[in-house]
């Protein structure tokens, strides 16, 4: 039997990464939305993501279901362990998701749904950051079950990763708005982009120092020879991207702030993957131990290899249809 685990790891890894980038920038737009000065700019921010947010969020479903399909044991242990952050994230996503239509159709309660959109985006992002932090720290496991308390996931470390993700998503959102808007709104995106970039830099920096101090295996992974030589490009490229991002936010390029922010996310993501490999439930189960049966993986793989490129194609087409600066006559107005 062929070993499908590496391929599924790659597919799921890319799926989650797409989610982080795509819903990342539209949740980030939601975070920046709260700082927008007037209704016109709020309309523009919302319209810049209105045609695509739903597709972006679909990657979250694919991430959850993909984890269940490829690594069901991990799904069955991780989900109960992050019971409350997942709950809060889902409820926050409900609020922000319906806000698109409700805010536009229900003028009397527009302010309420404005807050729903902003705080929904903010809280959902923070909750995702807590999930990430709890995942890196690992869980109490007995046999095939999570054996800790539903409140274990709230730690100083996970709160910090929550904060880091809020800053990171807001940075992505700023990058998107710089691409999609002009004039005062674009200037605002640059201004807040700089602040959230600094926030990202500091919080991710602390996380990067804290993680190897917390976990000796991760420290060994990065700092023992010869690993340190192979892995040193990761922090180096990250540092270069950070400089590029800062200069781009202060400069005139409309594409570079978004591109460099995506690059920073890619490097952080890669860093986490390097730290945890080959575990999917840190300290307990490897990808292979948590994998579903080869029959299951093969059955879903056949369709995925055909459908995923098709999905990427028509998703790209829907982005292409709405290319260019946001127009005030397309979308909600």
């Amino acid at each position, binding site marked *: 039997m062929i070993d499908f685990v590496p391929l599924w790891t790659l597919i799921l890894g890319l799926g989650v990464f797409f989610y982080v980038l795509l819903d990342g920038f539209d949740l980030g737009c939601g975070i920046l939305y709260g700082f927008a000065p007037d209704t016109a700019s709020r309309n523009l921010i919302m319209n810049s993501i*209105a045609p695509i947010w739903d597709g972006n969020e*679909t990657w979250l479903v694919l991430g959850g279901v993909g984890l269940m399909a490829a690594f069901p044991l991990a799904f069955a242990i991780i989900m109960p362990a992050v019971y409350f952050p997942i709950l809060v994230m889902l409820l926050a996503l409900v609020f922000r*998701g319906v806000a698109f239509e409700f805010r536009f159709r229900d003028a009397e309660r527009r302010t309420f749904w404005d807050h729903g959109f902003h705080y929904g985006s903010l809280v959902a992002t923070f909750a995702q950051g807590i999930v990430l932090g709890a995942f890196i720290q690992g869980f109490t496991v007995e046999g095939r079950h999570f054996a800790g308390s*539903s409140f274990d996931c709230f730690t100083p470390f996970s709160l910090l990763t929550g904060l880091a993700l809020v800053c990171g998503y807001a940075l992505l959102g700023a990058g998107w708005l710089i691409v999609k808007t002009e004039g005062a709104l674009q200037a605002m995106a640059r201004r807040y982009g700089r602040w959230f970039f600094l926030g990202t830099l500091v919080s991710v920096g602390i996380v990067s120092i804290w993680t190897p101090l917390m976990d000796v295996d991760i420290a060994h992974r990065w700092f023992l020879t010869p690993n340190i030589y192979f892995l040193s490009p990761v922090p180096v490229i990250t540092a270069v991207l950070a400089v590029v991002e800062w200069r781009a936010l202060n400069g005139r390029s409309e594409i570079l702030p978004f591109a460099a922010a995506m690059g920073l996310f890619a490097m952080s993501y890669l860093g986490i993957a390097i730290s945890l490999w080959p575990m999917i439930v840190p300290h307990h189960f490897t990808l292979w131990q948590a994998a579903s049966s080869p029959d299951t993986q093969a059955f879903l793989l056949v369709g995925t290899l055909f459908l995923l490129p098709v999905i990427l194609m028509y998703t790209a087409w829907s982005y292409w249809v709405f290319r260019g600066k946001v127009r005030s006559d397309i979308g909600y107005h």
Partner: protein
Amino acid sequence: MTLDPLLLSRLQFFWVIAFHIILPAFTVGIASYIALLEGIYFASGREIYLRISAFWTRIFAIAFGMGVVSGVVMPFQFGTNWSRFSDATANIISPLLGYEGLTAFFLEAAFLGVLLFGRKLVPRWAHFFAAVMVAGGTLFSSFWILATNSWMQTPAGYTIKDGRFFPADWFAIIFNPSFPYRLAHTVTGFYITTGFVVLAAAAWFLRKQRCVEEARIMLSTTAWLLTMLVPLQIALGDLHGLNTLKYQPAKLAAIEAHWNREAHAPLTLFAIPDMTNETNRYAIEVPELGSLILTHSAGGVVPGLKDYPRDQRAPAIVPFFAFRIMVGLGLVMLGVALLGLWLRIRKRLYDSDWFLRLCTFTGPIGFLAVIAGWTTTEVGRQPWTVYGLMRTADSVTPSLTGLDVAISLAGYMIVYLVMFPSGFILIRSVMRKGMPAEAEKAPVEGGRPSAPVVAPPEAAP
């Protein structure tokens, strides 16, 4: 009183799915209706179909948004509250859920943007194509999620190792015994639900003498559709019942509150099933009719709850009444459809005030029937999550405390009680605004708008 995480998790699942299911019950049907209208408009170029389509698309957008956010909640429930079920069944059900995401959700999401906002940006055929893709997505979604549900009801094509299910035959897993019947019965139910909503809106406009031309088209086509679909649905329901008798006899016994296995069984019209004393109180029965309806022969043997150990019986009172509510509502729907046909023959369909009033009144009837039917099938299969093989009590997440689930259930209740009524009020107000005479014009051929584009294309991401 101690908080039981199992009971609370079941309540939570009921709460989130009961609210969620009313949205697909409408969006599956209305997406197909929009695709049909867009198709007619594309073929005939008649503006009136564009106006009707634009009207329903506005309503669809609100319902779909609510459907998406309440749907994202669902797969996570398997992990957070039913982790042992996930661990045991993931090898079988997760690819089905995965295919739902891959074939349905992405299709819907990507083309929805174009359907809602792209009329000025893409050529007419592409807009029609987007409508078809969205409708197709909703149907693919129904296919996979009902395959999953049906496998849990009538499991097939599996082997069991170490208390976990492994796939043996994917065709048997997907096309398990109850799936074709459940799929046909559910999707038809969704179409009928939508039909009654459209009928109610059309009748309301006609009574107010607004958008009369559009309302007549809506009323006429939908009344035809319901005249065909409601009798079909009753026949499908009957077939689904025969299937349940064959594969889930204990569920059937609970639905009928039938205690003893017997031929020439009566049909119980009303009763209060008493699970402790194994009997029905205040029963009103019609002799012989039970066997006749359930087995299609007077001498047919109907299973009884006493055939099964006490701990393998569903709480009969819930499926018994839920089923009777569903059937009762079905008969009302049949009445409305037949009245419509009779009035049409007498050429009074559009100007009979009492019929229009009746149609307005029966607008939500399909939703009630869907929830009643869903309750029948889901409570009726208790105490199992995988029928006859895995108990609900063994499916729940072991780490959860009663307090954990009480908090999460409260969260879902509060948020849904804000969101769903808001959405309902919003849909009603959008409906009342009606159809503006001047709908959004389709673009000139070539697909780019005639108005000047604000930004140069090279600024695109």
